């Protein structure tokens, strides 16, 4: 009968606040077999879809031939990395990626902070909540939808924005989406539209946790709104800003593959190609598995360096880091 086997005799389940009991592995496996069993499917997922691909990164150092497999393919050391660094594409990829990262830092990162601070000053709560409800919406829309909206709004013949530019600034009607010059502004506009509203949530949460007594005391001392802002509101969200800055820096090189791929066309390739879209193009569509894996690995490692670097920097500057 199942209950005969069923441990754990209640006493054997330690205090949930305590760390793991020190018991031999076999005893632990037996005692907690149900818990371990529940762990298996999820663990299998992580092994197969997260850690196997990490093992697959070894093909960056091989001339991988699918037919020969991971163990049979020839090892070539850093050949693909040399090819990447000395090849004609690297400079363009790096500068495209860095420029987009820079524009993100300048325009995208501060936007939710500013909007959150503006919402925080809004004291008509009905209006505040309605505005919040509306500006969160785009977060839930797919990049395909955002890209399609962009194509419609910028359409040469009937697009609202294209029309507006034509009416206001004159000049011939052009297909902005197909122009290299317009690629970066459009990408940044899309990101702002999609993520600004949602990004305010975390800052608003930090602002909501400020003790109202602080403002009260400041008012008693004669501080105006501006001084309350500088001395109470802004310091209150500084830790959040630091954490978000670290997280953002880790993702800077990721430069949303989905978004960029959807806006890339043959005319704006020169500015649109970033590491991720290059990996897709070279790796998946052209089948250069080893080379593209090397590119991906380079980018992944650079991301790790960035996130740890900015965490270190934050701590050096006296802020609480992420880890």
């Amino acid at each position: 009968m199942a209950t005969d086997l069923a441990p754990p005799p209640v006493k054997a389940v330690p205090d949930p606040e305590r760390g793991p009991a020190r018991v031999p592995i076999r005893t632990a496996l037996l005692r907690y077999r149900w818990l371990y069993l529940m762990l298996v499917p999820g663990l299998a997922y992580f092994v197969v879809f997260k850690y196997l691909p990490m093992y697959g990164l070894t093909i960056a150092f091989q001339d991988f031939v699918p037919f020969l497999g991971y163990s049979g393919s020839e090892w070539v050391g850093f050949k693909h990395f040399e090819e990447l660094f000395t090849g004609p594409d690297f400079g363009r990829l790096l500068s495209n990626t860095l420029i987009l990262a820079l524009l993100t830092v300048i325009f995208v990162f501060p936007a939710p902070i500013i909007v959150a601070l503006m919402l925080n000053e809004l004291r008509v709560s009905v209006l505040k909540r309605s505005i919040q409800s509306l500006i969160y919406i785009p977060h839930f829309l797919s990049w395909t939808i955002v890209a399609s909206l962009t194509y419609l709004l910028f359409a040469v013949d009937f697009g609202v924005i294209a029309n507006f530019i034509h009416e206001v600034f004159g000049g011939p009607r052009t297909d902005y989406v197909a122009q290299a010059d317009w690629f970066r502004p459009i990408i940044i506009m899309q990101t702002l539209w999609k993520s600004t509203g949602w990004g305010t949530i975390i800052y608003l949460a930090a602002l909501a946790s400020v003790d109202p007594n602080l403002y009260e005391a400041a008012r008693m001392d004669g501080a105006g709104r501006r001084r309350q802002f500088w001395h109470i509101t802004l310091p209150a969200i500084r830790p959040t800003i630091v954490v978000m800055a670290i997280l953002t820096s880790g993702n800077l090189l990721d430069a949303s593959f989905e978004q960029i791929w959807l806006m890339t066309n043959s005319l704006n390739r020169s500015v649109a190609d970033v590491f991720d879209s290059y990996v897709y193009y070279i790796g998946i569509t052209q089948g250069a598995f080893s080379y593209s894996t090397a590119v991906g690995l380079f980018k992944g490692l650079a991301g790790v360096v960035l996130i740890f670097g900015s965490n270190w920097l934050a701590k050096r500057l006296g802020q609480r880091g992420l880890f």
Partner: protein
Amino acid sequence: MSVNHYKSLGSRVFDALNIALLTALALVTVLPLLYVLAGSFATESEIATRPFFLWPEKFVTDTYEYIFGTGTFVRALITTICVTAAGTVVQVMLTFTMAYPLAKRYLPGRALVLNLVIFTLVFSGGMVPTYLVVRDLGLLDSYWALILPLAINPFYLIIVKSFFQELPQALEEAARIDGCNEMGVFFKIVLPLSKPIIATFSLFYAVGIWNDYVSPLLYIDDSGKWTLQVLVRQLTSADAENALAQLDSVFFPAQGLKFAVIVIATLPILFFYPFLQKYFAKGVLIGSVKE
């Protein structure tokens, strides 16, 4: 004595400006969506001649009739609904069953597994190695390729784990005394207590699959297995004309079609949006991430 700073002129000007700017932001956010909705019910000529409108002069449903009468669309819609439903079930089951043992601090080996999970947030094998794994598993052109590679979101897993840690242990203890094994405790006690959070993550996972474009791009070649997002892309991108040529009909409202297919791909999300927002507004996620 404190002065009421909110009544000063500068303060009022600031408030007025603030409200104006925020309202403008809200309008910029929703107007494109309303325009697309209106455009999907407008005639081809109205779309071509009026640059912007929120209400069509002549209300027509041509595009929708065309869409629901075309095999390609109906198939993509059904595919997307089925993959989303099946995928959400798989994702939620895997996430919750894994989160429960990870919430037990006394479980030997828990820290190791948790670290393995967290490491995947910082570093990953990347696109091509993952593609090769999916290919080696024989999942190319299979609907499972749209589900399994994304089966557990590590962020969600950690949040659910934190939620389980907060649950009162007394009920679980009582069930154990009654002879329930851990699996029984999980299904009979813990899951019923977790209904709101199950609902929340079901919605988030569902939105994720519904919106996913990268997985079909990577893993699905067969145009008979296209999802709605791929179709949206095919119809509205620069190469739209090629895609339109593949459709099984001669006449179609070309521009209106773009509007309508965006509406169809967006509407379910907007339908569930109030629920999505409700749970987020409560700070479910943010509060627990802090741990």
